[in-house]
């Protein structure tokens, strides 16, 4: 394609091709500290393209394509090209990943052990991960955690952190020196701004961690902690994984293994500070 860029995030290599320069320039700048795909061969290809040639120029509209596609993906305006690229990369992971059990969870690490946080969008898993990282945890990812069925270890996938609405200001406060992408107001998901994970997160992205705690956070409620029964945790994780069914027996072994090995806890929290307190308390009780 006319413009392209390759990058490796954790164990996964991507190649992004684009009909326009702008999204590629943004990716190059934000991912400048990341390595290239193993052996120069990406795991996934992503395409950002114009449906009709004139759409490159007149009201340019970015269609999303690649190795794996969903028929109903709607195009985005060119000024949201970076968002389109990130969505398309996530889509490849969600539909194409096979080597790891893909958990829709954020992850942070301390002393070689990983804390996984999962929940529906808005539960705060992304915000909590960035807040914990600001307190000294190693950031492993805010969207996907990769569980290796062969080892039971969690691999990091520290892609750009996608901050939404109020989370933008909160993250800027916690990470005043962080590098930020352009502010994209009024996207289909609200205001969005991408933040580059800290240097340590990128430098250590090839170091896996042993899962130690699985948390289901929920924002906007009085602080409360309750243990989640194994069957509920199991089912929720099958629904929080896009490839659980696709990887078959390996997925079953990996997930039942995870549920048996680590405590599952639901926490309701009214604000970030309480959540961190609750998480730290759970962690020290392990």
């Amino acid at each position, binding site marked *: 394609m006319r413009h392209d860029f390759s990058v490796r995030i954790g164990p996964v290599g991507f*190649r992004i091709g684009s009909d326009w320069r702008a999204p590629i320039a943004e990716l190059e700048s934000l991912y400048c500290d990341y390595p290239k795909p193993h052996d*120069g*061969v*990406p795991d996934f290809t992503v395409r950002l393209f114009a449906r009709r040639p004139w759409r490159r120029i007149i009201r340019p509209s970015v269609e999303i394509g*690649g190795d794996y596609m969903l028929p109903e993906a709607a195009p985005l305006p060119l000024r949201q090209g970076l968002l389109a690229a990130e969505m398309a990369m996530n889509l490849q992971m969600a539909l194409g990943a*096979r*080597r790891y059990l893909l958990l829709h969870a954020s992850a942070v690490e301390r002393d070689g052990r990983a804390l996984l946080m999962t929940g529906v969008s808005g539960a705060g898993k992304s915000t909590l991960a960035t807040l914990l990282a600001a307190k000294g945890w190693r950031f492993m990812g805010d969207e996907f955690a990769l569980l290796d069925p062969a080892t039971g270890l969690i691999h990091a996938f520290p892609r750009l952190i996608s901050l939404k609405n109020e989370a933008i200001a909160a993250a800027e406060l916690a990470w005043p020196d962080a590098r930020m992408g352009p502010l994209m107001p009024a996207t289909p998901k609200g205001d969005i701004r991408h933040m580059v994970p800290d240097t340590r997160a990128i430098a250590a992205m090839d170091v896996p961690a042993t899962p130690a705690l699985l948390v289901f956070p929920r924002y906007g409620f009085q602080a409360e902690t309750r243990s989640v029964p194994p069957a509920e945790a199991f089912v929720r994780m099958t629904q929080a994984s896009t490839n659980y069914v696709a990887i*078959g027996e390996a997925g079953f072994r990996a997930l039942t293994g995870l549920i048996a090995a680590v405590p599952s806890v639901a926490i309701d929290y009214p604000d970030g500070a309480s959540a961190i307190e609750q998480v730290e308390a759970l962690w020290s009780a392990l």
Partner: protein
Amino acid sequence: MVRAVSDARLLARALADPASIVGLDADGWTALLTMARAEQLIGTLAMRLDGLQMPDGVQAILADARAAAEHGRRAALWEAEMARRALSAVDCPVILLKGTAFVAAGLSAGQGRSIGDLDILVPRASLDAVEAALLAAGWEWVKPDPYDDVYYRRWMHELPPLIHRERDRMIDVHHTILPLTARITPDAAALIDGSFTLENGLRTLSPNGMLIHAAAHLFADGDLAGGLRNLWDIRCLIEEFGTDGLDMEAKRHGLSREVSRSLRIIDALFAEGTARGTDRLYIRRITARDGWGRPTRPITRLAFYVRSHWLRMPPAMLARHLWTKWRKA
């Protein structure tokens, strides 16, 4: 160094002659893998290249593709098994078609093959009973639309698609291998008579029957989308069973032209043959894919798309069909 190839001939060559990948650089590998995914041949490619020297990154991608194909094989066989159970009370032969048949019979064409819906062939006289049994066992109509339904029942060679409400898998129930509107009318009864029984009581077409079906589907029906995969199927069938009696059987179904075209194009794509005349156009269409996985040659594609409608329907009917669709849109 391998010469840069800008279309899916790169993929065809890698399938036919796995050693041709020696010397591919990173960009060559990337293009090959991307094309293979776009043509739904990545699992097949992974099986063909298993054990060869290649970069670790490529090795890992192909190992994933093999695992995915194995999972797909299992799911396809299970869907066939569930159909078998649902239809066990209907007294008629149930013949697996396409990918599911290849894996159920353990054929080389099934190795690594991606398999979508379950396709079965049953005698036309049993169609109502089969439909009732499937509906009773949890399958539901995908498109409860009156026009489509009438259209299907009147003109198509299959029931409107059904989907299983628990397993989310589709089944296509055919009673012959080409639409009733097509100018060619294969002898479905003969295909059924010649079918082979598998251990579990399900059946597959005879090797020649499978080959003829693949050729009919490719050259007398669709717009050649997925053509490379179809041709690879045929190539595997020939390698495994030869072509004894093929001419005569193709003639009986009125598909001699399609079958011999398949053989010539396979020879050109996967061996040393040289394509001539209109065969070259077909090859242009079948290999219209670039290293980014994008479809190329839009004019050629459009021509074959129009042709596919032309083949399916007599002109007056095509006009009526397009008119109805247009009014609704």
